[in-house]
């Protein structure tokens, strides 16, 4: 039995009720539906807003972060007034302001193999709006194992991807990407950046697919992948086939329960920059400031991209972008004491691993990067 609509709801949804493909019954279906949105960031913002506005009766939000200043360039569900507040709370407030007739459940916790089954249990549909590979593989496997559709969206700089992975009717994420890329090969948005409006485009497409699935109308993107490029303004569609040897959705799967996805991907299940090389190879910004005061020679190696120097730089540092480091090692002297830095410590940690494997030993990774330097040592520099 589908729930009924009040007079207020009929007025609120009148533009939906006028479309024959939605109508009163469709709107009642939306009211009866439940959707879990993993991540309330760039993609999760438009997804959650439009699903709330459309009248999806029960929406779950999973995120464990707080709203940060650098989120507001694209995460339009949050605002200056919710800086520092839990993202799920900030998002729920905005959604209930938009539509008080819906139920918003919040899960202020990381989405992991331990809680994913429990959290997702009561929802019909899952929307993947996460920002990292481990959580994407987790979301996929969870959906395959529980027979729920996974509305997938992913972004980087100017590129976006959208698909509906429903293993009962087509391929899953692993059919297309059986293995994650090696750690460090694909930069995250925190490292590589993203055009602010891009998650708006991709997230809105995910919300569209979710509504179509709930309403049972149109052709869902099952077995198809949409590739969007904002610079070229191109939309390409490619066909996806079920991989007969898929480790999770084939008839004889290897993966029959949720696994350790951080170990599988070799990276942490979040997109925070917190590069560390390990015991003894890190140096803090205060330690660096003290060492610089002693006047002993110290080479500062900046492994960021040239355009980042305009934002902030350290006097006298040598610039070799991480991507060029392997081919430019001859420019460095392994006998020199050296401190490697980047924006926040992720790229420099990788640079240090490369230097260590090339035999350098007098090297340290600046924990927290130039942003930590700006925060704790030289407030005249901006944080980005």
């Amino acid at each position, binding site marked *: 039995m589908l729930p009924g609509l009040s007079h207020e709801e009929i007025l609120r949804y009148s533009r939906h009720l006028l479309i024959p493909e939605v109508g009163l019954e469709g709107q009642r279906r939306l009211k009866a539906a439940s959707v879990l949105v993993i*991540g309330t*960031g*760039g*993609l*999760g913002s438009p997804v959650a807003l439009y699903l709330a506005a459309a009248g999806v009766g029960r929406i779950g939000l999973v995120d464990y972060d707080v709203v940060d200043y650098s989120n507001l360039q694209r995460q339009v569900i949050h605002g200056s007034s919710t800086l520092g507040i839990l993202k799920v709370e900030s998002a729920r407030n905005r959604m209930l302001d938009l539509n008080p007739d819906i139920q918003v459940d919040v899960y202020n916790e990381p989405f992991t193999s331990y809680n994913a089954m429990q959290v997702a249990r009561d929802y019909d549909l899952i929307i*993947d*709006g*996460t*920002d*990292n*590979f481990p959580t*994407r593989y987790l979301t996929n496997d969870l959906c395959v194992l529980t027979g729920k559709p996974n509305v997938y*969206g*992913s*972004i*980087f*700089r*100017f*590129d976006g*991807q959208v698909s509906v992975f429903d293993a009962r009717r087509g391929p899953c994420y692993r059919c*297309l*990407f*059986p*293995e*994650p*890329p090696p750690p460090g*090969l*694909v*930069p*995250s*948005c925190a490292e*590589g950046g*993203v055009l602010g409006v891009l*998650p708006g485009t991709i997230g809105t497409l995910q919300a569209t697919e979710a509504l179509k699935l709930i309403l049972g109308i149109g052709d869902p993107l099952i077995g198809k*992948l949409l*590739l969007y*490029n904002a*610079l*070229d303004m191109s939309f*390409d*569609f*490619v*066909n*996806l*086939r079920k991989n007969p040897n898929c480790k999770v959705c084939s008839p004889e799967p290897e993966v029959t329960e949720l696994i350790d996805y951080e170990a599988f991907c070799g990276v942490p299940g979040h*997109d925070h920059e917190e590069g560390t090389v390990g015991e003894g190879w890190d140096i803090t910004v205060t330690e660096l400031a003290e060492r610089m005061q002693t006047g002993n020679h110290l080479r500062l190696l900046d492994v960021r991209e040239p355009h980042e120097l305009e934002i902030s730089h350290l006097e006298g540092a040598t610039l070799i972008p991480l*991507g060029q480091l392997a081919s430019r090692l001859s420019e460095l002297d392994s006998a020199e004491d050296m401190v490697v830095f980047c924006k926040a410590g992720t790229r420099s940690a990788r640079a240090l691993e490369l230097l260590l494997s090339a035999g350098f030993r007098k090297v340290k990774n600046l924990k927290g990067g130039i942003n930590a330097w700006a925060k704790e040592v030289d407030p005249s520099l901006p944080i980005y």
Partner: protein
Amino acid sequence: MATLRIPTPLRAYTGGNNEITVSGNTVGDALNDLVTIYPALRPHLYNGEGSLRPFVNLFLGENNIKDLQGLATPVSENDRLLLIPSIAGG
């Protein structure tokens, strides 16, 4: 000559070019031509043993070459190859 479309994450290695004209009678030859023109792309597409990395998806038109004849898939004039990256941003 076929064209090969480069996604944003890999454009850093093609001097910013988004579409490269490549020659070759098969997908494998066309890819070889690509990494000859842009050697910095090679480690992103091939592993140490010289085979295509498992997370690299190459489509000829709308179809994954894995569903065709892999690197031996014939390529003809005016064909369009698409490299599909693994991206995780959200």
